[in-house]
């Protein structure tokens, strides 16, 4: 029997959900926080040959402390290869070598499009956000995009104010029309309430699993579009003992992951 400790917090569950989407030997482009933890949980459990890279130029780094940015000093010593943006974003990503990318956004819509540019009008914004950075090319070019988002009717949207990063754009056929690989794109949308996946035909996000403590109804009500529900919808598997052990003992002994609770991931 797989053990499932009871004392996990929601960000830990979300990190585990991310980890389970990573296959052995996947090449994963990570940022900091959730993505790094998720990828590392995978590497320490079922995907020992998963390889990570940061857009700043570091490949297969061996950080001795949690990286606090994608250019963190701890990503230098011990890495297998260090170049710059052209190597990682061009030679690895644009050339088609990157399997998985993690993205988060202030707004995410039903087609998995992400907004990290602006809330409100572009020229007279309510709130100016950081911009694309690496998000757009990662969303455009990795095989499977894992999206992390808060689940409420403000963060999820029928339509984002600004498409910074393409998901399935305006639906079936759109990626192909723009010259993007049709089979690539958003793979799972991991929120603090559920895991949504994307329908092969309609390209819309649908409910796959709901986290312990919520329900199909609550998730549907928290979603601003007419959320379809999978026929075999079920509860998300809670963090397993081995996942939790890696997270708390190896990756994040100071439990920095708790800061995500403060950001609403509860």
């Amino acid at each position: 029997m797989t053990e499932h400790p009871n004392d996990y917090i929601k960000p830990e569950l979300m990190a585990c959900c991310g980890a389970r989407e990573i296959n052995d030997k996947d090449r994963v482009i990570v940022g900091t926080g959730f993505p790094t933890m998720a990828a590392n949980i995978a590497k320490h459990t079922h995907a020992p040959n998963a390889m990570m890279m940061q857009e700043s130029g570091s490949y297969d780094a061996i950080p001795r402390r949690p990286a606090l940015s994608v250019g963190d000093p701890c990503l230098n010593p011990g890495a297998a290869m260090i170049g710059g943006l052209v190597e990682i974003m061009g030679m690895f990503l644009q050339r088609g070598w990157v399997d998985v990318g993690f993205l988060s956004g202030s707004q995410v819509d039903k087609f998995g499009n992400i907004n990290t540019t602006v809330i409100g009008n572009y020229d007279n914004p309510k709130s100016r956000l950081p911009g694309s950075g690496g998000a757009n090319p990662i969303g455009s070019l990795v095989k499977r995009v894992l999206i992390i988002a808060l689940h409420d009717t403000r963060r999820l949207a029928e339509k984002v104010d600004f498409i910074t990063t393409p998901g399935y754009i305006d639906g079936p056929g759109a990626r192909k029309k723009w010259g993007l690989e049709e089979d690539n794109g958003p793979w799972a949308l991991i929120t603090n309430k559920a895991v949504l996946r994307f329908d092969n035909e309609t390209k819309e996000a649908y409910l796959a699993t709901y986290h312990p403590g919520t329900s199909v109804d609550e998730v549907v009500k928290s979603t601003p579009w007419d959320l379809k529900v999978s026929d075999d919808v079920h509860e998300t598997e809670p963090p397993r003992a081995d996942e939790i052990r890696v997270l708390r003992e190896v990756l994040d002994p100071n439990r920095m992951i708790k800061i995500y609770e403060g950001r609403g991931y509860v």
Partner: protein
Amino acid sequence: MNKVMSMKEAIETHVNDGAFLYIGGYIARPPFSAIHEIVRQKKRDLTVVRSNAADGFDMLIGAGCVKCFIATFLSLGFYGLARCYRRSIESGIPHKIELEEYSNLSLPMMLMAGALGMPFLPTKDMVGTDLLNVKSFMGDNKYKMIESPFDGSPTLLVPALRPEVGIIHVQQADENGNAQMWGIGGDCQWGANASDKVIISCERIVSRDVIGLDPSRTIVPDFKVVAVVEEPFGAHPGYTPGFYDVDFVFGSHYQQASNTVEGFEAFLDEWVFGTADRIEYIQRYIEKYGYGQFKNLEAGFGFSPPVSYEY
């Protein structure tokens, strides 16, 4: 030709109001000493470019130095929001900068194209998104969509960038400007070489002989360089691999100060206008934060295996 000079002289001589600047760094090796000197000398109407900008660019914007920004991203990341940037865009304080936005694939490639003498090049990102729907000072030359003449597929072309001056901070350079760097690169090599002339800020000046012991580490050749400034600790509060760590305490201090206009101005008064140069800046740092914290930033011991180029 000895190009060694002070940062004051380098910025006075080579950065004019209205100039188009590439300013390197990627948390690793931001040329912060040069940024402070640009603020100190109250340069105006600059066009600035870099992939993934952070606190240094926020400061230039807040100080009113920037007119146009060719950008992909500006955030203070772990520290919090880039307040000067947001005040400029949201409220026009001190003025609204003009913004031309790309991504962390397309912009490094545009610098690479500039460095390699190409007029433009194709990239595969940005298509299908609003990044193509907003254009600013680059107008219709922000990009072109064409049908590939090879196979007819829709292809995005982005233009080469050729800044007038590139400013980077590296580990070491010789007096002529041959500049050597190792560790995380960001878009430094391409940005510097895209530029017509380069200001090299470095942790240490070494002899031409030392450069010649490992020429594969050189990222900028001397003939592009107009100034070499020996500026130890010059990337602080960013880091330089092999020399010192990121200063999280000071980084947070800047973020908190910059939450208000008053706090930002007080920060500049204390750390930029209130210091004449990097020596005074470090002196103040040690007085305020203590030599212990300063010393703690110093990098641990590391040692790469020597290699030979002999025959």
